[in-house]
């Protein structure tokens, strides 16, 4: 079991009512496992699974990226800057 810090923004922040949350991730210790662990606590998140992108340590990456304890990750909702 590893623990990662998940940063929350936009609509996801509104769902969790938090800027950041620590999540325990089981094997295979990747982005998808982290999302599923979070969505188990917050079922409203499930609807976002297909539209968010994973960022690990400030970089976009794929959901199968292996995580390490202490990683800062974020599930990035579709952006709307500008």
């Amino acid at each position, binding site marked *: 079991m590893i623990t990662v810090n998940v940063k929350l923004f936009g609509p996801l922040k509104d769902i969790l009512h938090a800027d950041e949350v620590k999540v325990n991730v089981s094997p295979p210790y990747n982005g998808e496992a982290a999302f599923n662990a979070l969505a188990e606590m917050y079922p409203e998140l499930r609807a976002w699974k297909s539209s968010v992108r994973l*960022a690990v340590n400030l970089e976009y990456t794929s959901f199968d990226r292996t995580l390490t304890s202490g990683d800062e990750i974020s599930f990035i909702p579709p952006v709307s800057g500008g």
Partner: protein
Amino acid sequence: MVSITTDPIDVASIYQAVQSVHAGGIVLFAGTVRNRSQGRRVNALEYSAYIPMAEKLMAAIEEQMRAQWPLHHVVLVHRVGMLALGEVAIVTAVAAAHRKEAFEACRFGIDRIKAEVPIWKKEHFEDGQEWVVGRDDADTPMT
């Protein structure tokens, strides 16, 4: 030069920052808060960002711009926080020897920022608030 700021963006000072005797063409884009979105009256826009990641990606976009076009100066600034109507949310400004490069690079900059950089806007209406998510570009209030 890239930045995310909570302060009002001063377009005139950005113009001053990019102009020089080496650059014959300056193109500046400013995105401002419009009073309507999809037919509804907007009172304000609230921008939030994943700041360290946004700054990192904006710096990468500046690098891509400089790699593709010979540019003298690049400024990419995005404001966050609550913005009133007419306020400037973003400026992309480019100075190059010639206008073609300046136009292309400036357009590339704003297009990439809107596509990639983790910044989100929430529209504040008379009767509620709404995150702008996955909306077609042409329909967003700020394009």
